[in-house]
């Protein structure tokens, strides 16, 4: 059987060779290993009762119960979701405390996993007008914005050659499940340039199986350089203010054009002391609040 992969252009290759009688042995260009077991504890479920079996007869393997370890209460992840950190301003810290209290209470009910820009997620929401009253959407997270209860993330996918982006709210009560299908980071904090990239970079199989990560492994960084559509783009991604490392500019821009783009660079910005904002104290307070709410 030919294994159809919807993701191309990745650097990794799996080592397995699929052979079958009618085709040449194929190298499977897939980005995830076929042995897709999520970070699990595989417990044998109910045994198949097949009656008196012969010693050489085929016995189907016992069904395993898949449990996603990352959302269990015992897991220690020192990842502070960015919407907990309040934006800079003259707001009373009491207001942020109240918001964080609400957010932590919601997190006790719904498991919101750690997600980065570049990870592939599947979100199940309650929808009044869908059959079965729920709708699912899978896509790559291209942006995370907002702080506090109104924090959002945008998922992008291509469905029947039409690019679709949906902005979900993390703390909306209609969100029933957020499942991280593939946890990884990209070279940039925002992947809005995928709108101007070739559609293959935004296409993901809707029925993708979750990819496992070892418990102690760090989040992998996908150093993919994306190929773009011919210019003009929706934004001038080559300019230094966007600071994009994930586009292969050498295929689309000449050296002269790159030099021209550097004219808009602002090298004094990194030395600007008024823009410095140390959040370590606020983060320490927030961790204490999280610990206190976990214990209570």
């Amino acid at each position, binding site marked *: 059987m030919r294994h159809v992969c919807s993701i191309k252009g990745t650097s990794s290759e799996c080592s397995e060779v699929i052979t079958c009688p009618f085709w040449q042995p194929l190298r499977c260009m897939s980005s995830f290993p076929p042995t897709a077991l999520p970070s699990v504890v595989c417990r044998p479920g109910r045994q198949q009762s097949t009656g008196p079996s012969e010693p050489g007869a085929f016995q189907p393997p016992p069904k395993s119960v898949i449990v996603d370890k990352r959302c269990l209460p015992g897991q220690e992840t020192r990842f502070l979701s960015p919407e907990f950190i309040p934006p800079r301003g003259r707001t009373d810290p009491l*207001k942020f405390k109240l918001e964080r209290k609400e957010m932590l209470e919601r997190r*006790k009910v719904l498991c919101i996993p750690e997600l980065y820009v570049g990870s592939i997620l599947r979100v199940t929401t309650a929808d009044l007008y869908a059959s079965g009253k729920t709708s699912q959407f899978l896509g790559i997270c291209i942006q995370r914005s907002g702080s506090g*209860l109104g924090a959002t993330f945008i998922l992008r996918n291509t469905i029947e050659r039409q690019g679709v982006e949906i902005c979900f709210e993390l703390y909306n*009560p209609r969100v029933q499940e957020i499942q991280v299908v593939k946890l990884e980071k990209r070279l940039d904090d925002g992947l809005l340039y995928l709108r101007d990239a070739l559609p293959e970079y935004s296409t993901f199989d809707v029925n993708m199986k979750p990819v496992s990560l070892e418990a102690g492994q760090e989040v992998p960084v996908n150093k993919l350089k994306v190929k773009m559509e011919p210019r003009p783009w929706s934004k001038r991604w080559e300019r230094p203010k966007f600071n994009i490392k994930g586009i292969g500019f050498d295929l689309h821009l000449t050296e002269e054009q790159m030099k021209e783009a550097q004219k808009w660079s602002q090298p004094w910005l990194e030395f600007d002391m008024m823009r410095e904002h140390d959040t370590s104290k606020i983060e320490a307070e927030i961790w204490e609040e999280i610990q206190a709410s976990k214990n209570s």
Partner: protein
Amino acid sequence: MRGWRLLTQAGAQVLGRSSGSLSAALPPPSGNRTNICLRGKNGTWWDEHLSEENVPFVKQLVSNEDKVQLASKLCPLQDEPWPIQPWEPGSSRVGLIALKLGMMPLWTKDGQKHVVTLLQVQDCHVVKYTSKENHNGKMAALHAGGKTASRFQLGLLPKQKVQIFRVTDNAVIKPGPPLYAAHFRPGQYVDVTGKTIGKGVEGIMKRWGFKGQPATHGQTKTHRRPGAISTGDVARVWPGTKMPGRMGNVARTTYGLKVWRINTKLNIIYVNGSVPGHKNGLVKVRDSKLPAFKDFCKNLPFPTYFPDRDEEELPEDLYDKNVWQSSEPSITFA
């Protein structure tokens, strides 16, 4: 030069005036208030003649005294308050002065998202009572003061903002007791008045919403101008014509805002929509005067909420019946 702040204390016969309306020269209050340091006439400030070590000491002393004064007024029963009269149709009760903290999303049980403003009631006390005849002949007035300000402007515990609430005679409260957020209940509608954010001098497109002119098609230097300001026959410009000028920093009211939730412990009111003013600004909150919500205060604490008089203690959070709380499970449409 800083503006004048009020000198108020409940239970004593002190003149009370609304803030911001004082002229530069005023007769000093009578009799026993001799320890007032008034700025402006002398040109001195409170720590001019204090040595450096004494400044933090005096600050600490003063803040302790302030706390004692505030705490002592928490029990109106010590002062023999006026009798509580029952509600009658057509009566209106006091409002509150609150601080605008910020805004937050809120979801209802059917999955709709609304935005709420948090208003915190900090040290709101009833400060003065003016009877019907003294005020304007129709209704009595109660002065309520908002956030406590620094006492180094004046001698005693002043309030940062004092507002007048016109009340009917059966809703009068003796000056003294503090007002709490539980004075309002979820599900009722309020009007909120505040000073809008000042924008300075603004053009007509922002100030009055004019459309301006197109960006292209031959327009010479005319993209945000008013165009014509009057007709030809009148041969003058009507007074009051909309023109550029100072915008904002004016008292405005938003009517008919629903109260979704009340936090009795921190005295915070969650009010639907937006409210005039910037964050940490003081606003005046009162029961809605819209005809749709007339006689709404039937089931509300009248004349106000006294925590020590009521036997039942209110829970920490009071919600409207449609509000979805974070501890509830996710919404499903069955």
